[in-house]
């Protein structure tokens, strides 16, 4: 680590510092990747709630397969899409621990569709963070279930044709239909306001679990600069406009008890 500007002037108070729940390992994510931002938000929330030592995370398959190198809690590595099944078991064995899954759009809305819908339907009091960047990052930029119509990917070289490939999956809208879900929200981590709101949503989603209320999922609109073939900042703008334009950034389900939580 090479800290610069360490000669802090007098009278200054600390406003932001490195979260305890984040390891010091420098991540493998691409420059500007939203995974880095959301990992940090999860770590900040675990710190604020004081639950780091009581938490078990379930890692997905995707770019964030190595999340266990970055977030400082016990972790198990699930097969692609199966994290909600593992989390279900762990939470039922340890109802007083905090159990969360962190999944990409392919992991949760393609191969893992059955597992997440059933976990939500059973009202498993786990917390799911679903990162939606409308593409398969780790495997090199193929179409994801959330890829937009007309979007060019390595497996839709002429743009996604919905008549052939199907329509984009609006996962939050689907999960909100399940009786067991108590908090389903979509956020956009594509600007400062959005990131702050995302953090609050993540905190509420963890609190819903801690208070034993039911299943909570925060879908986060995100970027993939590398596979979208644009720079990090341009990717944030594109996501805000195009993903935000297609996937409504709103809360689809929030029970009264969840609303009353102090997040």
């Amino acid at each position, binding site marked *: *680590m*090479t800290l610069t500007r360490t000669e802090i002037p007098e*009278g*200054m108070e600390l406003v932001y510092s490195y979260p305890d729940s*984040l390891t010091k390992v420098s991540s493998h994510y691409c*420059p500007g990747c*939203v995974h*880095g931002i959301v990992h940090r938000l999860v770590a900040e929330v675990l710190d604020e709630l004081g639950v780091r030592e009581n938490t078990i995370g379930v890692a997905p398959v995707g770019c964030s397969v190595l999340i266990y190198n970055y977030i400082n809690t016990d972790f198990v590595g699930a097969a692609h899409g199966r994290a909600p099944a593992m989390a279900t078991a762990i939470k039922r064995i340890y109802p007083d621990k905090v159990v969360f899954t962190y999944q990409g759009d392919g992991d949760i809305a393609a191969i893992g569709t059955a597992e997440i819908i059933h976990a939500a339907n059973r009202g498993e009091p786990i917390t799911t963070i679903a990162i939606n960047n409308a593409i398969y990052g780790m495997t090199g930029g193929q179409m994801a279930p959330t890829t937009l119509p007309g979007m060019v990917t390595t497996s839709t070289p002429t743009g996604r044709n919905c008549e052939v490939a199907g329509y984009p999956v609006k996962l939050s809208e689907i999960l909100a239909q399940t009786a067991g879900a108590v908090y389903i929200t979509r956020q956009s981590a594509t600007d400062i306001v959005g990131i702050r709101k995302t953090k609050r949503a993540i905190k509420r989603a963890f609190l819903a679990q801690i208070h034993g209320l039911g299943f909570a999922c925060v879908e986060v609109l995100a970027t993939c600069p590398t596979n979208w073939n644009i720079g990090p900042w341009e990717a944030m703008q594109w996501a805000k406009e195009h993903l935000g334009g297609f996937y409504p950034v709103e809360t689809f389900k929030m029970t009264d008890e969840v609303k009353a939580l102090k997040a």
Partner: protein
Amino acid sequence: MGRGWVVVDVDRCKGCGLCTHVCPVKILKLSPDTFNAKGYHPVTVTDGDQCIGCAACATICPDVVFTVYRRRRVPKQTPAALQLTAQLTPQPEG
């Protein structure tokens, strides 16, 4: 002297540039002629006196490069308020 101060962990920076866009006083810039250990052009602070300690940079940074400090501003009191405070709170002897 600015109201805020950021400590920058240069080797964590991947030169993504997100912070340079969100800094409201535009004092962050990717340094064009230096590289960090990862081989990126890391962020530098061009004019620290302008920093307001808003932590937008820390909010958007995916790599936790920034530690942010801010000087607490005590609001200026009116004479009437100061007088009332003196009346209601015990004064030290002597």
